[in-house]
């Protein structure tokens, strides 16, 4: 034990603060949250230290999970919502990555004004999320929004973007793509700059076309950056709540799993903590399964992290 401490004490001393903070503020609440999913806890029966009221909620076993997984409307139509979440996540991450990669490739060339372009293109990342949400909500307004004004002026139909239709989902996806591209672009640009120039020269000497260079040099060189940012992108987008919540409010057409958890959590007087936590645990389980499958797939291709 002494030798163990002698050997590792500085490493442990350096990670200790984070471990303590995470254990107290993440793991403990998480454990309590998991416990909540087996109860019927809500605003009416939770212990209230301010009013000095003891807790009166009961343990109900797997009832919350059964209710949610039955796909019942009054529990957020889980399966339909899951499908919408997947559409949301994959379309957002697809556009984040492809647009981000395209712009990174352009910025990686010798182009005049590159620094200025880069600053302008990263700007959406720097603006606080709730401000962007407000800006887009204003621009998407059906009557006085600039977007419909523009569509009318070039003779295109002007949908009611944030109404009760799937246009609302399209609108929030557009906003989230706008928000998320800069991160992917910057990460991929860094990845591109770390690919040695000799590889391109060698490929050129061998007579590779630009497309072949892209497929055989650029893409493999970006593999590890890509796998990391795509995984992070999927996790973040899956749980991206402010964009949808602030722009579309409680519109059932834009409801994804995490926004429904929030709806249950914050709605009115009856704040249903049990169902909200159940959604949280289900989201965590889905992402855990996804991440382990993703890792295994990468490892099969010889990638280790």
């Amino acid at each position, binding site marked *: 034990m002494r030798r163990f401490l002698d050997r*590792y004490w*500085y*490493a*442990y001393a*350096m*990670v200790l*603060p*984070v471990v303590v*903070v*995470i254990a107290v*503020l993440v793991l403990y*609440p*998480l454990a*309590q949250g998991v416990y*909540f999913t087996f109860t019927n806890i809500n605003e009416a029966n939770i212990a209230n230290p301010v009013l000095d009221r003891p807790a009166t909620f009961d343990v109900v076993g797997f009832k919350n999970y059964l209710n949610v997984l039955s796909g019942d409307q009054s529990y957020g139509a889980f399966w339909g919502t899951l499908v919408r979440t997947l559409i949301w996540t994959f379309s957002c991450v697809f556009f984040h990555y492809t*647009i981000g990669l395209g*712009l990174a490739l352009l910025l990686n060339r010798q*182009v*005049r004004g*590159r*620094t200025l372009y880069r600053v*302008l*293109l*990263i*700007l*959406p*990342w*720097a*603006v*606080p*999320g*709730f*401000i962007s949400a*407000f*800006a*887009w909500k*204003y621009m998407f307004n059906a009557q*006085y929004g*600039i977007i419909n*004004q523009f569509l009318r002026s070039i003779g295109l139909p002007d949908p009611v973007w944030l109404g009760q239709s799937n246009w609302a989902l399209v609108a929030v996806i557009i906003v989230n793509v*706008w928000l998320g*591209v*800069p*991160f992917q672009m910057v*990460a991929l640009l*860094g990845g591109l700059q*770390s690919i040695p120039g000799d590889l391109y020269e060698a490929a050129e000497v061998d007579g590779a076309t630009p497309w072949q260079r892209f497929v055989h040099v650029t893409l493999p060189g970006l593999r*590890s950056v890509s796998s*990391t*940012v795509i995984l992070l992108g999927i*996790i973040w987008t899956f*749980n991206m*709540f*402010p964009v949808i919540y602030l722009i579309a409010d409680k519109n059932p057409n834009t409801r994804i799993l995490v926004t429904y*958890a*929030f709806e249950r*959590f914050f709605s009115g007087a009856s704040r249903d903590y049990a169902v909200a*936590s159940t959604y*949280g645990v289900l989201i*965590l389980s889905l992402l855990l399964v996804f991440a382990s499958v993703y890792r295994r797939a990468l490892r099969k291709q010889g990638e280790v992290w």
Partner: protein
Amino acid sequence: MTLDATSLQVVKASDARLKRTDRSRLASFGLHATLIIASFIAVFPVFWVLVTSFKPDARAVETTPKLVNESSLDNYSRILAGDKGGFLTWFGNSVLIALLTTIIAVFLAATTGYAVSRFRFPGKRGLMMSFLVVQMFPFAVLIVPLYNVLLTLGLQGNSFGLVLVYCTTAVPFCTYMLKGYFDTIPMDIDEAGRVDGLSPFGVFWRLVLPLARPGLAVTAFYAFLTAWGEVAFASAFLSAADESKTLAVGLQVFVQQNRTEWGHLAAASILVSIPAVIVFYLVQRFLVTGLASGAVKG
């Protein structure tokens, strides 16, 4: 590097054009056109809020929007004078909370990232995995248990409690990024420092941290933004009194009460964005190198 190259090109444009004979005029045009359109889309929403922020509320909702329409600085002066809630107080709270979060999160992420990058110790893999898992749970759903924890610690309704909560959301990603950055700094430097008689902490503090400035800048940017724009935790964990609100919370209330005051909202939004944009401008030249090595090494 890149800055030098571009400024050189601006001065000696004709030389630069000669050098780039391998790209045809058409390709060059396409390149610039794409970048200009993309930049336009990136900047336009912010620009439009700026335009709106000068208009009176009634002009902001006209069906044929114009760039300038009875524009003035009235919205700004009214907000700064406190007609729409204690804007300056909220601003101060937000600055304090965001700065504290940035300092604490960067410090925690740096020590942890360094330990994970340099030392092999039991539990290292578990620690890294838990950082990934932590990002998978929608944390705002844990507001109730968190509330109880903060209450027990005596931090409920206190800005420091909120700072700690923000750190838990910012630190995992920051640690990942900094670990990657530290991995790119050669071990030889550490060894040389040890030979010269520095302790492991001395090596970290005196040698590695100064070299990791780009990585630290990105981490600081990320932590600052996490705290600056957050709404859900801030409205749950700060006391309801007006003088303890952050900007994000105060504006949220403002939006709900004044759904039509777009002009004032826009002006307030611009004021809120300014500090974030300043921080962004300070770190932007580090962003690419800082973020890249983090993501490359993951």
